[in-house]
């Protein structure tokens, strides 16, 4: 019997703490698969964020570190400069990367650090109970915007981090993809592999934004949450490659 789809060896046989239908589990598997395909498990170091994926090191079977809230790219910069042969990537959510860690993100990208950043965008703060994130959509109801996000009352517009960073000369690859269907999931795996390849080829900073479902906070079932990415999130955050060398 030949195996077609088997759990990647970079993913530990451990039950995750994520809610049913959460995108983190899918993305953890994709990252593990890419690392197995590139055969870089022994030379990879990940930096986990603060957020739901704070204990990602429990699930990945390669070296991981934890960073203070938003500072993952600063920690990754240190790791990369001390060990330039390592493949270093950060795995960050929108609250971590786009809000409290915006300075570290922009400056790491502007310095052209040879890092890969996987940016999980679920348009809310998942772990702390669903407050508004910089990436929340206009009209989206969250714990801190119970009537929906309205720019007129000082809540601002969704922050498009990928578009922002794509303008910087130190950034070599920026792509946005989603986890809303098997096709999109396979495309996400392809973009993450490309981003890692750019780092291994020493081309510069690479970022992959992944639109990920958060059924619990969005108050939808997992299937509806997938559909919401397609119908609502993609209008504001259209998938595609924003920058390539």
């Amino acid at each position: 019997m030949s195996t077609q789809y088997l759990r990647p060896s970079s993913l530990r046989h451990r039950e995750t703490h994520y809610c049913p239908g959460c995108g983190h589990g899918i993305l953890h598997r994709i990252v593990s698969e890419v690392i197995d395909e590139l055969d870089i498990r022994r030379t990879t170091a990940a930096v986990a964020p603060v957020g739901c994926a704070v204990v990602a090191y429990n699930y990945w079977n390669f070296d991981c570190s934890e960073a203070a809230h938003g500072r993952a790219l600063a920690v990754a910069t240190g790791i990369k400069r001390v060990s330039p042969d390592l493949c270093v990537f950060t795995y960050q959510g929108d609250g971590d990367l786009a809000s409290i860690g915006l300075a570290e993100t922009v400056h790491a990208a502007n310095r052209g650090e040879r890092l890969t950043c996987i940016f999980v965008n679920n348009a809310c703060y998942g772990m702390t109970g669903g407050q508004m994130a910089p990436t929340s959509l206009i009209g989206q109801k969250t714990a801190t915007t119970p009537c929906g996000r309205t720019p007129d009352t000082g809540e601002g517009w969704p922050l498009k981090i990928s578009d922002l960073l794509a303008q910087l000369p130190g950034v070599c690859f920026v792509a946005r993809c989603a986890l809303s269907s098997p096709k999109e999931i396979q495309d996400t795996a392809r973009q993450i592999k490309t981003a890692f390849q750019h780092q291994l080829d020493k081309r510069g900073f690479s970022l992959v934004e992944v639109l990920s479902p958060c059924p619990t906070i969005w108050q939808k079932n997992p299937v509806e949450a997938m559909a919401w990415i397609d119908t609502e999130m993609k209008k504001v955050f259209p998938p595609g490659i924003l920058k390539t060398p």
Partner: protein
Amino acid sequence: MAKIKINTDQCKGCRLCIHFCPVHHLRISEEMNNKGVLYACTDPHTRCIGCGYCYLVCPESCIEVHLLEPSETKKTHT
């Protein structure tokens, strides 16, 4: 032909695999697993085509898809 192996104790019952299966080979069980969740299981009335959609969308990575050799297909489905 293909065969699906589900780690039912790890399943959280999100039903994404059931939704995306193009041949309706997966369904929800009538019994609960160790967590008290109605888990995903295969329907013996339909055959798996080995597309791997269930594997791709499973957030717990608790589904494996095995391709069957022609001889094994005969053994399984007769």
